[in-house]
């Protein structure tokens, strides 16, 4: 027991698989979370992110593979033996204990001296110090969430797991808590692993984001990387929005691939394509597309389109346009001028983008989210 609790270092998940009777939740997953970083596991429901989290906590055991912290192999050990704590999605505060006793629970089990004092400090950290004598049922959702965090933090675990902790909060509170969590993590310096299906949340808070789908990691990296250069169609569609279209590589031009996308020839830098020959999926982010009435000059890629819908969003205007292949693209233009381009459904327009903004991912059956 002592051996596990003293584990220190990076979290390593090595080729972990978790199978249940009728399906595989996690499929040969491997990743390393550096000590002290804020890591996000992002993906839709059922992708296996919560199962992965539970395996790190010890609440589930992997069918195959190992989980280590530093050099200590935690596989097979029980949750109470690991230096890992969880903030549960439903908070799971003990209803029969006061807030303070809830937070002091971990220290007391570990026979730490002055557990009440530690509890109070942890509560102060989440700004709940004044409510220590209340019971969970007397608190609001946001307050309970903070208590759940304090209860985990007070133990200064090597790894702190957060299972969609902000899911039940309203938007404003959620934004607040995102900033709070990031601040606390920086202050306390623990490794945080945050599981969520909200890609905005993951990108705001995490140093590294791993996008999971069907039990596997599709892409992992800094938020900007994932957004700027998705490597699979799923990531392109799950993280932010993308305009996609099937294409075929027809040749090369220096550093770029020449691709035929539904009759239009476009150029994509080789470094921004996951595929070098054959079929692929072409993609461009909506805000990277420029819309104009006249054919633009320049070395950008362009294509003719018809406006289907115009929506004023305050900060930007969103256009839905139909491109020659029949697909519908979304275009965001920031409203920099007080009098924007006056476009209506039915207008013929030209779309333009810089080749360096486009990307290409493998052609797949399903395009994700």
């Amino acid at each position: 027991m002592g051996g596990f609790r003293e584990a220190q270092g990076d979290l390593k998940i090595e080729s972990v698989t978790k199978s249940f009777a009728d399906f595989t939740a996690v499929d040969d997953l491997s990743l390393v979370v550096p000590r002290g970083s804020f890591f996000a596991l992002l993906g839709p429901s059922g992708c296996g992110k919560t199962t992965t989290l539970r395996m790190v906590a010890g609440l589930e055991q992997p069918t195959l593979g190992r989980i280590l912290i530093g050099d200590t192999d935690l596989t097979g050990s029980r949750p109470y033996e690991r230096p890992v704590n969880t903030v549960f999605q439903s908070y799971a505060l003990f209803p029969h204990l006061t807030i303070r006793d809830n937070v002091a629970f971990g220290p007391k089990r570990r026979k730490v001296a002055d557990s009440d004092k530690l509890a109070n400090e942890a509560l102060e950290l989440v700004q709940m110090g004044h409510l220590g004598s209340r019971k969970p049922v007397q608190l609001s959702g946001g307050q309970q969430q903070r208590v759940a965090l304090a209860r985990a933090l007070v133990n200064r675990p090597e790894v702190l797991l957060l299972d969609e902790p902000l899911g039940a909060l309203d938007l404003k509170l959620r934004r607040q808590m995102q900033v709070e969590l990031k601040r606390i993590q920086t202050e306390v310096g623990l490794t945080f692993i945050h599981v969520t299906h909200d890609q905005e949340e993951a990108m705001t808070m995490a140093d590294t984001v791993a996008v999971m789908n069907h039990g596997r990691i599709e892409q992992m990296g800094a938020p900007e990387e994932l957004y700027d250069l998705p490597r699979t169609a799923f990531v392109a569609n799950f993280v932010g929005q993308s305009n996609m279209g099937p294409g075929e590589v027809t040749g090369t031009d220096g550093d770029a691939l020449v691709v035929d996308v539904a009759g239009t020839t476009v150029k994509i830098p080789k470094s921004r394509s996951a595929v070098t020959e054959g079929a692929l999926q072409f993609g461009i982010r909506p805000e990277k597309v420029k819309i104009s009435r006249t054919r633009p000059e320049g070395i950008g890629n362009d294509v003719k389109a018809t406006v289907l819908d115009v929506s004023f969003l305050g900060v930007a205007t969103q256009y839905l346009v139909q491109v020659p292949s029949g697909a519908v693209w979304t275009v965001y233009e920031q409203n920099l001028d007080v009098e924007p381009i006056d476009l209506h459904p039915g207008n013929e327009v030209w779309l333009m983008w810089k080749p360096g903004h486009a990307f290409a991912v493998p052609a797949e059956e399903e395009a994700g989210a």
Partner: protein
Amino acid sequence: MASTTSTDTRGTGPGGGSEPFRLSSGKRARIWIADHFAMMSAIAVLLYLFLPVAYTFIFSFNNYRKSNITWNPEGSPTLKHWQDPCGAPGVCESLVTSIQIAAGATLVATILGTLMAFALVRYRFRGRTAGNVLVFVPMATPEIVLGASLLTIFVQGFSQVGLKLGFWTIMIAHIMFCISFVVVTVRARLQSLDPRLEEAAQDLYAGPSSTLWKVTLPLLLPGIIGAAMLSFSLSFDDFIITNFVSGSENTFPKFVYVSYRRGIPAQANVIGFAMFVIAVALVVGGQLLTSLRRPKD
């Protein structure tokens, strides 16, 4: 429950202009009755429920000479039964017996039943369904069959080992039928326990034993207490099964029944009503306590 009709007193009436529109009083009465039909029947039923209690109470003041069946028109209501509740022979002895049996049966049945509930909810084993059925069947069996069967086995079987009908046979019988009720009550509570709470405890360094004592049992306690209270009241008030297996021992209900022919002493009324008041006070007190500890916000 009829649909509510509002009596619109504004607007144009049959007379035109600003005459208020009113329904005839007959129609209004019918609407009121229809709206309140359910409420009135409910109150009537509640009164009906309390009628015998009232009679028990009233007759505890009866200044009777021979038997407490009819109100003595000549005597004036008296407090003498209240002042001497143990005055009639056998009343208090039977009460004490009832309380002792109920306490003992509750203790044993609650422990056995809680253990069984844990086994049936938390563990998978062959015969689990059979176990659940076995627990349920005594509750569905008429008391007379339970009493009769126990009587036959006590007389024809256990008498070989020297067991006589009396205090202990009553206790044994009461434990038997209380176990089922305890299992069902505790099981319901156990099943509704959020499994995340025990996971959280484990996540926070509580081993299996700590989790049980610090989290599971405290959360289960209201259910266990409820089961114990249920057990106690079932045992205390039991008559039919007790009658079959008690031999010459008297519990309070049996005493009342047996003394029926000769005339039930009013002291029994006194005690009966006192038990009622105590029980109600306990229940109301318990409710107030739980609602006080849970301020609404």
